[in-house]
């Protein structure tokens, strides 16, 4: 495996997020409300982009926050950021729904590590702009492969068939695309 740049460690990982999660663990509904206000837009945006259906995206949003209410310990705040974790869960749940399959990933098994601090909206907006700039600078074929895999849930085989590229090329494009993204945040 090639050396892969490491993401910047989570800064203070979201002390506020962790306080909210601790309150949710204690059954504090107000904490859930605050967490929803902080991250519902992120979860909904990912679900909407994948599903292209507002009603279905709303269902995914409900499902994810209810899972967090039921299993607040599923998120390990000592290692990754809550925003990134929620975005990943939203993507996976949405793809599962798109493919009309049972959820394949238990949220408790979805461990993440590293990543920039995302709990503040201003910081989150900066990160979003940075991600978009990385995608804009990416080779168009590479960006296309990454987006087909991530937002449309196509398998590498399906992407290879759709683009006419060899399977190995598609795999490598997806991997190196993510490497570029990580390198930008490690810089």
């Amino acid at each position: 495996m090639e050396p892969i740049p490491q993401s910047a460690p989570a800064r203070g990982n979201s002390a506020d997020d962790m306080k909210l999660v601790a309150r949710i663990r204690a059954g504090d509904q107000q904490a859930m409300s605050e967490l929803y206000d902080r991250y519902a837009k992120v979860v909904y945006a990912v679900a909407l982009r994948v599903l292209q259906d507002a009603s279905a995206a709303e269902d995914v949003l409900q499902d994810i926050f209810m899972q967090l209410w039921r299993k607040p310990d599923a998120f390990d705040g000592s290692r990754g950021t809550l925003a990134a974790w929620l975005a990943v869960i939203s993507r996976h749940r949405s793809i599962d729904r798109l493919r009309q399959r049972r959820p394949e990933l238990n949220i408790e098994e979805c461990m993440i590590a590293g990543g920039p601090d995302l709990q503040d909206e201003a910081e989150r907006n900066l990160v979003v702009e940075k991600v978009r700039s990385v995608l804009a600078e990416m080779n168009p074929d590479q960006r296309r492969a990454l987006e087909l895999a991530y937002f449309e849930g196509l398998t590498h085989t399906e992407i290879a068939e759709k683009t006419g590229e060899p399977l190995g090329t598609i795999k490598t494009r997806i991997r190196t695309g993510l490497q570029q993204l990580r390198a930008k945040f490690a810089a």
Partner: protein
Amino acid sequence: MKAHEKFADDLTLYALNELAGEERLAIEQHLQTCASCRRELEMLRSDLGLLGLSSSGPQPPARSRQRLMRTIAAEPRGVSLEQPLPAPKKSWWQEVMPALAILGLVFIVMSLWRTDIRRKDEETGLVTHNQEQAAQLDHLNQELRLLTSPDAVHVSLNPQKSPRQPSGTAIFSPSQKRMMFMASNMPAVPQGKAYELWIIPTTGAPIPAGVFKPDGHGNAVMMDHTMPSGVEAKAFAITLEKEEGSDKPTSPILLMGLVS
């Protein structure tokens, strides 16, 4: 090339949850023994999270927030050790217990009403009867208060190892100092044995909280138990003991549930 290097591309696809069949199996086997790849998988998920943030869109509808908060308010705060996704179907007793309690209340009210008609002829006997009915009514009310108490804590006890069909739930209210316990799919106990429920306090030894034997369907309910005063429970557990109960656990824990 190190052993895990050949998994580099597939690890990304696995993080995307888009690996199937033998490839998925191979990488899952590799992950069990390769800490480096496990760490890389977690980093890849973080990268994927960042990629997700590139999405933009409208705020979710306001009704979505209201819907969530309504659902949360209606759902008792639960602690389950292995609640599958989506939320598992409730055990039979969880479904029917409130309805049974209400039916019981209706039945008692009807009984009281009929008793009242006969009272003209049976005044002496009725006083005693009413007292018994009132006690029963109070008993059911107490159980209903426990089930509906805002601070009632539900703790699911599940097997530590597969198979995981047997399950139990302890419900207790710190303010009422009362608890109940319900179990399902419990194997039959050997002659002279019974299951014993233990309260595991934050400090000190496990406290016996009653013995029970499941019925022919493997179900059991223990109601109307008083929580020991001054005890802060951190977990509940079930062991197999002699049928009269033990002072301390003498066999391995069969089910256990933590109180968060």
